[in-house]
């Protein structure tokens, strides 16, 4: 028995490692170790006010900060009997699109592309691909600007509050965002033109299950009240546990998710596989050009899915701004009650995120948060196992195997901090 170990998984958010146990020519076990210490977010906010919960929980992860904010708002407002007006809803949707632009351009352009082009990092890429790096940085900056305009800060902005916004962004601020989009669309298509035609290894191909939020109205989108699963099942978001089936396993602090006793995948590739037919504009033409059945079998296509979603988010922003700027600023909606339950489901850039709450007499009494990376962990390990075995069968050296496993793990765009509030796996 020998061990192949990647001590520090680089170019992902947070602190992770990969361990493979090999017995002769067979891969016995693959572990994605999440070395972040637990922070126990579900106990931090107990007894606090709903508004304080809303401030704290996005701190689970800086990259998904607004997805956490949105999921939290949806759960808390349901529990408090609040229904927000359309303008508030649309602004929240706009900030999620901003987050998608920021997160996808960071991941595809700066973290995953070095893998796909054979570089150690994006800075090194500037020898031949300076233009691509600058395009990714430009789109990323715009995504941050959208988030900053609406949430007051690119990371952990406090402007989205229960029932509305502390301050609604002005039409001038929103038009200033819209004005930038035209120049960014060709940058997004350039990324797809680069990533779309790439060939990914067929030996990784194996079927899996997918899930995402169903936006309703036959639209593509990032929020919903129902969960859509690849076997055709639709679940009310309040029944999220029927999808996640979380369980504690004794060999780690990881709570693992399985649907019908099997791993499943959430994230860009899940959304595009399940809802891709609903895409519009240039994003739809790219979907038609590049999407095929292998996307349901190979996680590396998540990189292409993200670049298509990046374009989709950019295309969606101008019409959203047109609609929002035609509306008057509504008053902040006050809670209708101080006791209740509610679950919010949101598509974070890296997958479905659930926040489920109970509030008693105006204080948080129960908090359950299930993050996309926690749901993806089992599939990440499964595909790393497939990759390791295929590489061993081909007689590859450890260094090549390590590199390939990192590529598989990174293609999921894992957010180690996100999963680590539930997870600490340190296996000896």
């Amino acid at each position: 028995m020998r061990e192949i170990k990647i001590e520090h998984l680089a170019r992902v958010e947070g602190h992770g490692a990969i361990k493979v146990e090999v017995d002769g020519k067979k891969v016995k076990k693959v572990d994605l170790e999440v070395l972040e210490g637990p922070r126990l977010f579900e106990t931090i906010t107990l007894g606090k006010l709903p508004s304080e919960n809303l401030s704290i929980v996005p701190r689970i992860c800086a990259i998904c900060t607004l997805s956490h904010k949105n999921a939290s708002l949806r759960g808390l407002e349901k529990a408090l009997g609040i229904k927000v007006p359309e303008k508030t809803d649309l602004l929240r949707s706009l900030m999620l699109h901003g987050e998608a632009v920021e997160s996808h351009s960071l991941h595809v352009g700066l973290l995953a592309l070095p893998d796909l082009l054979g570089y150690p990092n994006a800075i090194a890429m500037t020898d031949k691909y300076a233009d691509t790096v600058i395009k990714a940085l430009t789109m990323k900056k715009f995504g941050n600007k959208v988030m900053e305009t609406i949430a007051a800060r690119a990371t952990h902005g406090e402007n989205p509050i229960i029932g509305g916004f502390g301050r609604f962004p002005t039409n001038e601020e929103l038009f200033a965002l819209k004005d930038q989009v035209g120049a960014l669309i060709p940058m997004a298509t350039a990324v797809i033109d680069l990533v779309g035609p790439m060939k990914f290894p067929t030996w990784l191909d194996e079927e899996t299950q997918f899930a995402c939020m169903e936006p309703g109205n036959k639209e593509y989108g990032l929020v919903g009240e129902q969960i859509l699963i690849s076997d055709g099942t639709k679940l009310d978001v309040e029944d999220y546990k029927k999808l996640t089936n979380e369980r504690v396993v004794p060999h780690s602090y990881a709570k693992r998710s399985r649907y019908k006793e099997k791993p499943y995948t959430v994230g860009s590739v899940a959304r595009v596989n399940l809802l891709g037919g609903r895409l519009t504009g240039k994003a739809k033409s790219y979907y038609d050009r590049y999407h095929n059945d292998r996307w349901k079998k190979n996680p590396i296509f998540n990189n292409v899915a993200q670049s298509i979603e990046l374009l989709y988010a950019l295309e969606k922003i101008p019409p959203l701004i047109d609609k929002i700027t035609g509306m008057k600023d509504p008053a902040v909606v006050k809670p209708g009650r101080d006791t209740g339950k509610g679950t919010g489901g949101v598509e974070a850039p890296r997958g479905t995120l659930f926040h489920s709450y109970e509030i008693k007499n105006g204080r948080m009494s129960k908090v359950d948060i299930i993050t996309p990376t926690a749901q993806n962990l089992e599939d990440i390990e499964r595909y790393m196992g497939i990759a390791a075995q295929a590489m061993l069968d081909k007689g590859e050296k450890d260094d090549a195997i390590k590199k390939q496993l990192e590529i598989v793990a990174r293609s999921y765009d894992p957010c180690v901090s996100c999963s680590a509030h539930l997870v600490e796996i340190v296996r000896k």
Partner: protein
Amino acid sequence: MTHHTAEARAAAKKKPTVGIYGLTGCAGDQLTIVNCEDQILDIFGAADIRSFLMAMSNNTEEQMDVAIVEGSVSSKGDLEMLQDIRKRAKVLIALGGCAVNGGPQSGRALKNDWKERVKQVYGDVKFSIPESLEPKPLSAYVKVDISIPGCPIDKLEFLRALGRLVKGDGPTPVKYPVCIECKYNENECLLFKNELCLGPVTVAGCNSVCINNNVACVGCRGPVAEANVAGEVEMLVKMKHPHFPDRKSFSYDDVVNKAMMYGGSPMVDLLEKAKGAKK
């Protein structure tokens, strides 16, 4: 705090070697560095960045001039990593709220201890893996040379600090509360609207961004030097509850809960002192 140190000046004579690290946290401060889209290529030009796991995979771990560390110490692995970094670095910078104060995870909302809370989340399962540690700031374990607070850090504050460090100087710590910036921005004081605002006890440097948006300060930058926490608590418990108008006022616990959102261990100490002053 030891700014303007001889070590810092020596470090700057040639292009300083820098390592950027994350312990347990949300990575928001490292992300804020990556978010310096207009400056990131310059940062990599001005400093010799040897290790930045979040952004690069070809990292080298050796002696360095400056170590920038984000996150709280929340596991034995974190502690070993921090002690190793401290040994190898001439100047250690605590980056962001978790590294400076311990972060929200050190916020003890409930009176029960860390082990009980672990049990609350994971149940009675017997783990075969090493214990976690109650989250604490870096200064609980090692000497910290420079602190850059904030959840997340302010981009400009970081760039200014790095720029000065590259030139052999250090940043000037902010010694006044958010209220000063809030007055400059001509905001209406939210305390008059019965909002539980932590501006008076929170260190400035954020340009009062939340209050500029009519949102009460959540104290994400941690307590300001010489914060009058006793005075703040006394004032706040007299106010009417703005969200549930039928409530008489905030309770002492409400105020403590809010102060402990991001105040970490320094706020625990200040609240203890405030309690003493009340008696």
